[in-house]
């Protein structure tokens, strides 16, 4: 498929951007107008978490789709979807900090106090240390931080394409940790995390298959293209 550059830049990109903001806008609207369930804090936590995983999967799907369809312009959306994964992941983390940690604090000196900040940091730290599925979730979010930080064209140039590509394979870890985090928190019905496990396995499996298919190619050819 060939689209003129202008159609992508001024048509498709803003469209993808706005639709990616859709879940966020919906959540804010629903929370403010009482359209969530009677446990809105849990809804916000779950929805932001699931959308993080969805955007990680979408980002990981771009390269396979590009290879299969030959539509190379797809890669121009990868930074955006990746940053949206980071955006939803950050929302997820913040909702957890506020609804799960801050809401459970004692406020010996009132809410607006230095001790509140200290106790909150302690509470988050202890929780990440103590509860394995929180440890995994937090690690998953952490793996996205350097990717978001190096997402600009300037950073790609500074790092060099090869090193940048290698660094950005961290998203494979993000995806796997995200699935483990999800799997670990459900009580009995694993069908939803199982879906994501299958999708992530396929997306990563594609890369493994492709890599082994390319093994045996003549030495010395640089692996410029990210898998």
């Amino acid at each position, binding site marked *: 498929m060939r689209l003129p550059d202008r159609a992508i830049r001024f048509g498709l990109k803003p469209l993808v951007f706005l639709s990616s903001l859709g879940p966020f806008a919906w959540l804010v609207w629903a929370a403010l107008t009482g359209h969530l*369930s*009677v*446990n809105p804090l849990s809804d916000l936590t779950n929805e932001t978490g699931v959308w993080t995983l969805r955007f990680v999967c979408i980002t990981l799907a771009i390269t*396979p789709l590009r290879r299969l369809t030959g539509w190379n312009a797809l890669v121009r959306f990868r930074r955006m979807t990746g940053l949206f994964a980071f955006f939803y992941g950050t929302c997820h983390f913040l909702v957890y900090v506020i609804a799960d940690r801050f809401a459970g604090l004692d406020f010996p000196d009132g809410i607006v106090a230095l001790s509140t900040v200290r106790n909150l940091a302690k509470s988050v730290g202890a929780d990440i240390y103590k509860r394995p599925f929180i440890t995994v979730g937090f690690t998953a979010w952490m793996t996205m931080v350097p990717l978001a930080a190096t997402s600009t064209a300037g950073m790609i140039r500074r790092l060099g394409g090869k090193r940048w590509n290698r660094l950005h394979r961290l998203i494979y870890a993000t995806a796997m940790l995200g699935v483990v985090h999800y799997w670990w928190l459900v009580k*009995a*019905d694993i069908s939803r995390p199982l879906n994501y496990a*299958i999708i992530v396995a*396929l997306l990563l499996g594609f890369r493994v298959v492709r890599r082994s298919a390319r093994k045996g190619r003549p030495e010395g050819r640089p692996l410029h293209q990210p898998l």
Partner: protein
Amino acid sequence: MLIKPAADIRSSEITDRKLYLNRREFLRAAGVTTGVAAAAATGVLATESVLHAAAQPAPHGRKLPNVQKSRFSASPETDKPNKWEEITTYNNYYEFGVDKDSPSMLARSLKPEPWSVVVDGECAKKATWTLEDILKGETLEERIYRHRCVEAWSMVIPWVGFPLANFIKRCEPTAKAKYVKFTTLNDRKQMPGLSMPVLRWPYVEGLRMDEAMHPLTILVVGLYGEVLPNQDGAPLRLAVPWKYGFKHAKSIVKIEFTEKQPLNSWQEEAPSEYGFYANVNPTVDHPRWTQANEHRIGEFFRRKTLMFNGYGDQVASLYTGLDLRKNY
């Protein structure tokens, strides 16, 4: 921007025939992958029900006659009862799906009338009791109880019911009856969630005899003075307010007196996480989350969880000498 095409093709870059054929295989594999991915995506859409139907509060039911106040009710100053809408749209009732709002949408298929309960095991009055027989001679009381879920959320619920002890006495248990086992309805026609093998059906719960005979333990038939809504376990459920919610068997069809401790469903599912006793205990954490505090539905700040859910004065003596850390 990343990929600089080479100006010309070096001989080393010409793909040999073998690799070329591999490529075909690869493309075939890729086709299969796409198919599987499409199937997976469909699966996601199906199980996540992206377009969530809205939760529906239960319609109001028949008013129950002559409901008495009870001295066991929580004080409204510290524990304001949750709203009807909250109590009937936020339910863990896996027989109607695993989402909190799915029972509110799916439980309409339950037929709570007519209803009967099989009484069996170590007792004299083994029989099938109709709900009318069970209720005969009982004075209904409103019991406003704190309800604490093992998932660390809680509500305050104005149940209507009567002491389970009254009914147990009428069944005349023998000296061998050490436990009472409760079984929930297991009918796929009425309960769509049963087609998912989430737990081993039917749902089973149990109490030690002294727990079952305790005056706080009630058989519930109503909510807010009305007939119990389906999503809350109609027409007959347990309330054992010092225990986690999963001990409160719903839509009970069988009551059995046993000598051996029954294996309750959640213990069977994950014995390291859910025990037989399941007493609310802020000092014994669930392996994956804290039980020290709880989210009271309708509030922002979390509340400290109280030992035995605040019913320690009445029930702590049941457990003297029992290691509650081991018997969680």
